[in-house]
């Protein structure tokens, strides 16, 4: 976070934060790589903002240490860390023009007026605010305010850019556009981005890695496909998207993973049986399941009856019930759904072995 123009590498070790007796963050250890785009994902109240504020230096952690490029910055005040920050609600200076807002961090650093003029001009160009230089924030739309906030946070070339739910106030179309722009800014600047959101699709679309939070704990960190396809626990599995869960008995290790009994059928799947015990959960994302008239002997499959369908346009969401009463949802082509429903009797749900994974039984 010190040399301008150079992406920072951040190490958080055992970070904890208590507000009175309330534990907002607990024993958080996380490495943020140089120039990566890390997303902090979690439900509201899970401690994402608190962690971002600790990174920025606005909040002192109660426990743990924070390092930037190997230097301990735990006690360093915010104005000396100079991380770029985009706040929820933007927090622009209401009395300053767009230009003055963006120039502020450079003026504070006593840069020459030539340099300030040049860099502010470049930044305004880059975020597409040309023609709005003299306006006050109150005269801008939400999307434009967002751009000013981004420009102001990036103009001094911080080692890390922290963004707290920057798009939560924008409508869907604009959100997509801003996401694309942010990705471009990340590539152009090469700065380390730490981005907070509670929207899982946003997290999966944007990041190089996703860190999932719940109740002040960091549950899992990994690339989007890694956390989506191999969630460490039930919370992560459910938070990242719809998932079907079926009880599995007699779980044991087999070649290339595990095997177990689901409604009297032998199922092979990924995972380590010794980590979950003999009774566990078989988890499969709806889009990996298909409907078939039969399942071959060695194939993963269970029998179910279609009970309802929801037309989604490109596909249909089909709700089914297995013989033992478990509910399953799949997403299938429209005509498949229609024929499955019209039969009224049993169909087979099948899926490739590598798409099913083991989760421990119970709450976790």
């Amino acid at each position: 976070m010190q040399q301008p123009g150079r992406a920072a590498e951040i190490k958080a070790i055992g970070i904890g934060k208590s507000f009175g007796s309330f534990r907002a963050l607990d024993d958080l250890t996380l490495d943020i790589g140089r120039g990566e785009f890390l997303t902090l994902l979690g439900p509201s109240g899970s401690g994402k903002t608190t962690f971002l504020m600790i990174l920025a230096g606005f909040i002192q952690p109660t426990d743990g240490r924070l390092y930037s490029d190997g230097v301990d910055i735990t006690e360093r005040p915010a104005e000396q860390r100079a991380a770029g920050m985009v706040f929820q609600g933007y927090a622009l200076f209401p009395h300053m023009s767009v230009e003055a807002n963006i120039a502020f961090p450079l003026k504070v650093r006593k840069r020459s007026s030539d340099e300030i003029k040049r860099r502010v001009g470049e930044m305004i160009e880059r975020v597409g605010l040309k023609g709005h230089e003299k306006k006050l924030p109150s005269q801008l739309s939400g999307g434009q305010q967002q751009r000013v906030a981004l420009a102001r946070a990036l103009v001094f070339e911080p080692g890390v850019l922290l963004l707290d739910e920057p798009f939560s106030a924008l409508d869907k179309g604009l959100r997509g556009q801003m996401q694309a722009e942010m990705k471009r800014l990340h590539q152009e600047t090469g700065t380390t981005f730490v981005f907070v959101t509670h929207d899982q699709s946003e997290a999966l679309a944007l990041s190089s890695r996703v860190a999932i939070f719940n109740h002040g704990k960091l549950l899992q960190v990994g690339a989007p496909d890694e956390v989506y396809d191999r969630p460490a626990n039930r919370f992560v599995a459910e938070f990242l998207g719809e998932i079907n869960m079926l009880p599995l008995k007699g779980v044991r290790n087999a070649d290339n993973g595990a095997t177990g009994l689901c409604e009297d059928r032998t199922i092979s799947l990924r995972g380590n049986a010794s980590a979950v015990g003999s009774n566990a959960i078989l988890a499969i994302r709806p889009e990996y399941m298909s409907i078939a008239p039969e399942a071959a002997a060695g194939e993963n499959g269970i029998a179910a009856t279609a009970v309802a369908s929801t037309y989604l346009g490109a596909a249909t969401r089909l709700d089914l019930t297995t013989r033992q009463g478990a509910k399953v949802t799949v997403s299938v082509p429209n005509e498949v759904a229609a024929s499955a429903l019209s039969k009224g009797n049993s169909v087979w749900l099948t899926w490739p072995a590598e798409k099913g994974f083991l989760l421990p039984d119970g709450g976790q």
Partner: protein
Amino acid sequence: MKAYFSDRMGAALLMAPLLLFLGAAYAWPFFGVVNWSFTLPEPGLGQYGTLLSDPLVQSVFVRTLRIAAIVTIVSVAAAYAITVVWVRGTPAQRVVAEFCILVPFWISVLTRAFGWVALLSNRGLFNTWLQAIGFISEPLTLVRNEFGVIVGMTHFLIPFAVFPLASSMRGLDDRVLLAARGLGSSRMRTFWSVFVPMTRSGIIGSALIVFVFSLGFFVTPAILGGGRSVMIAELIYLRIFQSPDWGLGAAISVVLVLFVGALMALLFRYVRPKQLI
């Protein structure tokens, strides 16, 4: 629509006695004063002519504006400091600030003016102390002059300056201040280039209130000025009660009311009435 209309009617009916009272107690006598200013001692614009040419009247106007301006600057600056502590201090600091702001309201204006006389007169506390420690040999003239008037008025008006400032500071988004610091701005710089400009409406409201109050001040200047530092309100009093020159007194009153009215109009362009309390 109907309900809305009858609500409005109901409100108007409830307000009517108050409006009647205000009409009877202020507007009616004021028109009497306007009438005097054009008719005493003889009909015409003679008193307004005197007002424009009489050096005494003009010197009092100039002094009043000068005192009001100084009192406004000092009061708003002091109130700003107190309000920052009151609104943004630690809980203990807040209690102390609140005490300083509220206690003056419990003490009458007369008591406070005489209190200052006791402190500032030639044999008052300040002069005695300063002489005792050998800082001065002759007593300083601290009352019966403009200095005394300014001290007394500032002391009286600071609490009134606090409320518009407090309301603008309370409405301020903390994240904007955090943003400034996160962008590398020191606390000092954040205060001057972000916090103060963002409380601008409070500063304007506070300054106008103090200024308007100062223009019509009577008791404090009369006591602490000791007749040597006469302000407009005292001049009007003298014209009407001591030298029966009702016409001139009335004309000065009319000019003062119009001037204050214009300032109030300006005030309400900048701040909503709700922010003043």
